[in-house]
């Protein structure tokens, strides 16, 4: 097991290394740099600043400097957010995004399983149709529409009913609920569909019939037989979903004014903030690799047939 984990981590390391390298050279190949702005700098200014930030060095040298610093866990200072370390930006942004993301994943996972179970239980009856309409909406409507709508709705309710329910992130836990729900919506819809088809298969399986013959009621059957067996595909996609959701969503974060990592990343790209781009990319890559590994291990716990590290 530990050997397996080590092997996976090693291959993950090379994956991240590869991503970082491609991003680094891709980023430099794109015209423009962090210093370019609407108004042109004089040649002298450009030279002075290039020298200051080391852009005058050959690219491979900059690359090795980047590797060296990254190896020491230092992504350097942001170009566009003066005086801020990229490490700090990531730490702060991620803590916000992760709070939101974990909530969103909880919503998505529980919602997906619940709705998926309902649609499967009531398949081809009205609850099924109703939920599936929402699922299609959830998958096809972009999240900023939901986000704007949800916010507008809260503001409207607040006004009509004289409430003060937070309509944007103000640092409190409650204010994260609606953004998290909206953020998790797409994943929830996807999971619902996945859960539905997977549960439908399980419902018709022989061991569920056996469970019925034992005299279990439908809740007991769901809980100890159907759920665990139908949840496997859900878990598989949960890993990447956790990685992508907890590392932030630009749209949700800007609409609900949550200072998360997604916003930082997009702003970094928009402004060619080299250090910020590299920092967030390496971070996101590593996190993704880690989450997929974690999910594979969890998978082994849920499905005893899969022995982590032995299968091949």
């Amino acid at each position: 097991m530990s050997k397996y984990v080590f092997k996976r981590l090693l291959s993950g390391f090379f994956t991240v290394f590869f991503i970082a390298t491609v991003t680094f050279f891709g980023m430099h190949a794109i015209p423009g740099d962090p210093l370019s702005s609407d108004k042109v700098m004089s040649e002298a200014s450009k030279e002075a600043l290039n020298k200051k930030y080391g852009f005058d060095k050959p690219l491979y040298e900059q690359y090795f400097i980047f590797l060296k610093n990254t190896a020491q866990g230092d992504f350097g200072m942001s170009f566009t957010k003066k005086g801020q370390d990229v490490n700090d930006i990531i730490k702060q942004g991620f803590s916000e995004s992760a709070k939101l993301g974990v909530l969103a994943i909880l919503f998505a996972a529980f919602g997906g399983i619940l709705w998926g179970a309902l649609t499967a239980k009531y398949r081809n009856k009205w609850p099924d149709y109703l939920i599936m309409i929402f699922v299609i909406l959830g998958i096809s409507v972009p999240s900023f529409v939901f986000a704007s709508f949800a916010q507008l709705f809260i503001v409207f309710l607040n006004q009509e009913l004289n409430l003060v329910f937070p309509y944007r992130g103000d640092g409190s836990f409650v204010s994260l609920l609606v953004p998290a729900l909206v953020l998790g919506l797409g994943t929830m819809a996807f999971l619902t569909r996945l859960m539905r088809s997977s549960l439908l298969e399980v419902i018709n399986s022989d061991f569920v019939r056996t469970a019925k013959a034992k005299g279990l009621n439908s809740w007991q059957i769901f809980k100890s037989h159907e759920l665990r067996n139908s949840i496997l595909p859900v878990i598989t996609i949960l890993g990447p979903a956790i990685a992508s959701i907890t590392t932030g969503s630009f749209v949700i974060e800007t609409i609900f004014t949550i200072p998360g990592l997604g916003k930082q990343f997009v702003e970094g790209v928009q402004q060619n903030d080299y250090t910020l781009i590299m920092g967030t990319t390496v971070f996101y890559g590593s996190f993704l690799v880690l989450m997929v590994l974690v999910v594979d291990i969890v998978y082994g716990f849920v499905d005893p047939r899969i022995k982590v590290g032995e299968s091949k």
Partner: protein
Amino acid sequence: MRIINRFAVLFILLLISSCSEQGNGVDFNKRSVSVIIAAEPPTLSTVGPVSSIGIFFQGHIFEGLLRYDENNKLSGGVAEKWEITPEGATFHLRKNAKWSDGRVVTAHDFIYAWRLGASPENEYNFITFPMKNASKIAEGKLTSDKLGVTAVDDFTLKVDFEAPCAYFPALTTFTTYMPIRQDSFEKWGADKYAVDPEKMFYNGPFVLTEWKHGVSLKMTKNNYYWDKEKIWLNEINVPAITDQSTTRFNMFISKDVCMVNLEDSNSLKSALKRRLETPMKSFSSGFISYLEFNNREGRPTANKNLRKAISLVINRSDIVNKVLGIPGYKPGSTMFPSWLGGYEKLLHEEYDFNLPLESLSEAQKYLALAKEELGMEEITLTYLYSGGPSTDGMAVYIQEQLMNKLGIKVNLDKQIFKIRIAKSLSGEFDFLGGGWGPDYNDPMTFGDLLASWNQNNRGKFKNEKYDALVVQANNSVDQKERMDCFYEMHKILHEEVPVFPIFESGGIYLADPRLKGFFRNIIGSDPQLTYARIEEDE
């Protein structure tokens, strides 16, 4: 069932606990207002990258030699008196102007700042060019101590001009001209100076007391400010940072901010639908947007007749009203926008900028001429632009117009901002969607844009007569003569079409009716809340 009950209780508890403070867009008792900003300022250093959002804060926490007073008129700031001649200017500093730690503001604080401002490391060093030797310092040919500014004594600052500069007093309100405390700047270094409240000193009406990066900022009244009697407000809050217009609008509706711009037709519509009691007012951003043609050799757009043909088939008011539909935009017929001052009144009141356009049928004639001169049967052009949905709409409109009316095929090259800038500099375009905002309150801030030596002249337009007029206006202190020059420049642009102005941008905004005494500025801090006050509730 029990689970559901538990959830219900939890939810209600959450609701109750969620009664956070809201509706403090304006607070009479606390004398505080809240505003929302679109992006975080990269730094508050006045010699760092210049941004309009930075200027909003800098305009409240720093004060230059001159300032705009409670009537938005230019008046004495740190300087009580000043004299200006074609050769230079002398500023007499008041002795009671203090930093936020009680230290007196002296001429040396300005000299220190301006030398930094002129150095090659400051991208905005061109703004110091009216001072003697500034451009040479910017090029690295002279050290910054050769800058034409000296302290006669602690409270007398003498400036030598490179060339006469009639608008220099107004220029001293620009952010690069703010004083800097040498001790603080050296302690933190150029990169870390002014990125946190404790990493700078303040000499303006307000001090920054809170800066949670990416989250919120707060300014409070500066008790050391020499004219603090005039300042009514205690606090200016920035509770959130977002460029989402709907969120900003919702914050206004929820009374969490005192002011909001209606930047898109959606928020305007919903504002109208809600029949808000708040009256809508318009503001100008000062920006002019235009198509800029590539005059580099080998580009078809280097041909004047082609440019004229194109200019005749694009209808500005159609773009503004039908394509963009953004409230507050005005069709613009000139590179000198309508808000600019002239020699006495507004420039547009003194000169006629609506030179008649030729008829549409002329366009075909120009096109035929252009084809002949270029020796081309078919013309295909690349349009470089960046931005959001509205600029997409404009691009498609232009594409259609040129195809339908002139048979010119247009390839759209949409890029993110930074790439557009890079491509425009290297000349990889036939025409591009460009824009220009003012740096100081004088037509020259637009006028020298198309001077052949200007780096921002992306299309490399070169016209000797035009260049001569720029020089003439630069060297004159006679405002009438200068304005005549600008008008002549406008006529040349109208004739040669190196750029085709499309609109002046601006907007509609809503402000809490109790909020008084603030200004929406084109130059400088926008909004300017220094002299704002709140009327008491009934």
